[in-house]
């Protein structure tokens, strides 16, 4: 899905180049890569962008140092959770926002990452205590207590994300052939299967009771490091030939295939990258809360992550991060409403579930009145300096498409799902 694109650009065939690398007229044509942009301006832009990134990272570090020093444990957890949710939302943005292949199964990868990570770092005596006879001996006896905590967490994240990515590759290879509703339904089926396995595989997952006593190794620094990495990878991917192919196949499947995009491979790449980061986030989450239970990885969470991404704007990395921050922090304020309020004259009783209702209704309103979300497809990533994407097509990019060169282009239907019907 995503906002309706302008028709031009997405159908523009790359006229000469056999590869995807040439940005001429491809939808993600950014001012920076645009051939029409004068080189010196480009250099300025790049260095300005670099400075913005450095400044941003320094500010983030300063904020984290401040938060660590002055926030109480609960608020610090919340700050950390923002980053973890951002990783999940960026993952979904890559696998669904870029390609338009809407996955309802993302949280299945979160579950995989969480369980795998937890089983790696759980101390052996606890694995014995919780009675998990299904574990292979080496895993049951694996003891990372001797490792530096952060190295153990890194391993848990990498393996958790890696296995999630592996599962995504296996599951995605057939599923990414589907489009539209069909892929949504099929990925939902995947989520239900993962949940069913987590609930029933007692000897490994401890069933509905879940795993507990996972060492709480995640801190704000690690979470934000992963979030920054996820954003960076997503952004590099977005401006790479693969990313352009993803956007192209989202905007017009037939046109994308006509210029030689291997749609299946493109979608699969996005799916696997998204699954990797979601798996990493799962591991981070497990090591933040210290427990993992199947109920945490089901439709409610799925819906929350979808709201993050849709609110931020499908396909926008900035949007995913902002959406994650809003959706993580807003319930904290809504909880006050839920607990009841006393405004002197008016006093409201405690209303359990109200915050979810407010979120859901808010989501419906966004779908109706601003389906493109806060950012649509645009990025405000590098400090307002290089607004990229379709939202601000530069004049140079427009000039690429002249009626003489591409007759009939303007009349093409603006149907984002054109090929998917």
């Amino acid at each position, binding site marked *: *899905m995503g906002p309706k694109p302008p028709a031009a650009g997405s159908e523009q065939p790359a006229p000469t180049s056999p590869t995807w690398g040439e940005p001429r007229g491809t939808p993600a044509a950014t001012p920076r890569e645009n051939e029409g942009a004068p080189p010196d301006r480009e250099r300025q832009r790049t260095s300005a962008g670099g400075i913005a990134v450095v400044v941003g990272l320094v500010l983030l570090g300063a904020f984290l140092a401040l938060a660590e020093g002055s926030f109480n444990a609960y608020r610090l957890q919340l700050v950390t959770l923002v980053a973890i949710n951002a990783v999940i939302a960026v993952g979904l943005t890559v696998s669904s926002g870029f390609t338009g292949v809407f996955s309802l199964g993302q949280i299945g990868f979160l579950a995989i990452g969480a369980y795998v990570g937890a089983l790696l770092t759980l101390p052996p005596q606890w694995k014995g205590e919780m009675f998990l006879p299904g574990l292979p001996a080496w895993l049951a006896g694996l003891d990372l207590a001797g490792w530096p905590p952060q190295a153990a967490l890194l391993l848990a994240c990498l393996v958790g994300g890696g296995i999630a990515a592996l599962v995504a590759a296996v599951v995605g290879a057939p*599923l990414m052939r589907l*489009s*539209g*509703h069909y892929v949504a339904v099929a990925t939902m089926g*995947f989520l239900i299967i993962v949940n*069913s396995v987590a609930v029933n595989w007692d000897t490994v997952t401890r069933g509905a009771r879940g795993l507990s006593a996972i060492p709480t190794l995640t801190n704000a620094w690690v979470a934000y490091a992963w979030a920054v990495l996820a954003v960076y990878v997503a952004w590099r991917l977005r401006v790479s030939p693969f990313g352009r192919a993803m956007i192209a196949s989202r905007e017009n499947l037939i046109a994308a295939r006509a210029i030689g995009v291997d749609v299946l491979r493109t979608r699969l790449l996005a799916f696997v990258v998204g699954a990797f980061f979601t798996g990493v986030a799962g591991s981070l989450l497990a090591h933040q809360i210290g427990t993992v239970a199947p109920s945490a990885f089901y439709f409610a969470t799925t819906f929350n992550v979808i709201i993050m991404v849709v609110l931020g704007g499908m396909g926008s990395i900035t949007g995913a991060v902002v959406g994650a921050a809003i959706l993580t922090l807003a319930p904290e304020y809504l909880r006050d409403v839920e607990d009841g309020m006393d405004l002197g004259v008016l006093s409201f009783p405690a209303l359990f579930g109200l915050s979810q*209702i407010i979120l859901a*209704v808010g989501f419906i309103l966004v779908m109706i009145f601003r*389906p493109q979300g806060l950012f649509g497809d645009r990025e405000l990533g590098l400090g307002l300096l290089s607004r990229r994407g379709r939202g601000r097509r530069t004049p140079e990019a427009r000039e690429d498409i002249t009626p003489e060169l591409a007759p009939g282009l303007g009349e093409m239907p603006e149907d984002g799902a054109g090929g998917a019907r």
Partner: protein
Amino acid sequence: MNPSEFGQQLVNALSLGSIYALVAVGLAMVFGILRLINFAHGEVLMLGAFAAYYAAAVALPFWLVAPLAVLTTVVVGVVMERVAYRPLRGAPDVALLLTSLGVSIALQNLALLLFGAQPKRFPTPAAMSGQIALGGGVRISTVNLVTVGTALALMVGLTLFVTRTPLGLSMRATAENALAAQLMGINVTTVVVTAFVIGSGLAGVAGLLWGARVGRIEPLMGFIPVLKAFVATVIGGFGSIPGAVLGAYLLGFAEIFLVALLPGDLTSYRDAFIFGGLILILLLRPRGILGSTEPEKI
């Protein structure tokens, strides 16, 4: 499995399939016309069951409770269409799907807020809670009998409606090609509202039957039936009403006999098998058995 056990399971499967069919028809109808997968359909069912509970709580007789419950679901369905889906007509498919997910979550939590999370005992009328002995040691519960009978009667009625009445024909025409139907003077809005009225009414009936079958009701009860009905519509082919009914009965049989035939420790994985099957069908035969929609495949 001995013959009498088999007979028992057969009736059980038919009854389960009937409930799925009642839910699936509403899903398929709305999908056929709007290309909307209405996740909130399960909440319509749930609200029907709760309407029955509260109607019975004020000591209304069951012959009044049932129509009241169905009326409630019809109103819910129509309001849902007007408020959430009509403003989105023409939006991308996935936008509709996500909105229905939002409606579903909102209604679930509204129900939690109003009715509480504690399950309530469904007021099954005494006449429906007995058992009838058939020959050969087969005993079937009255609920199952009533379920199958009600579903069959409603399916016959529905078939007559969509094949014999002008409105039914308009519905099929719109499902076939909305634009052409509109050009032929069919009021698409009327058709959409009709689909929601019928679908929600059937979901209300399904809610009553599900309540009587399970014995208790709670705000999240709509989730499982709608997922299963959903699988049924996929098996039968998205948007095809006869396909949905056929798929629902197939699913009912698959579920009951999977549990009966699978080795003990695998039965709890039933849902994993069902949804694995769903994925296979989507991949191998995305049109389903009777579906007419174009497959969305690359």
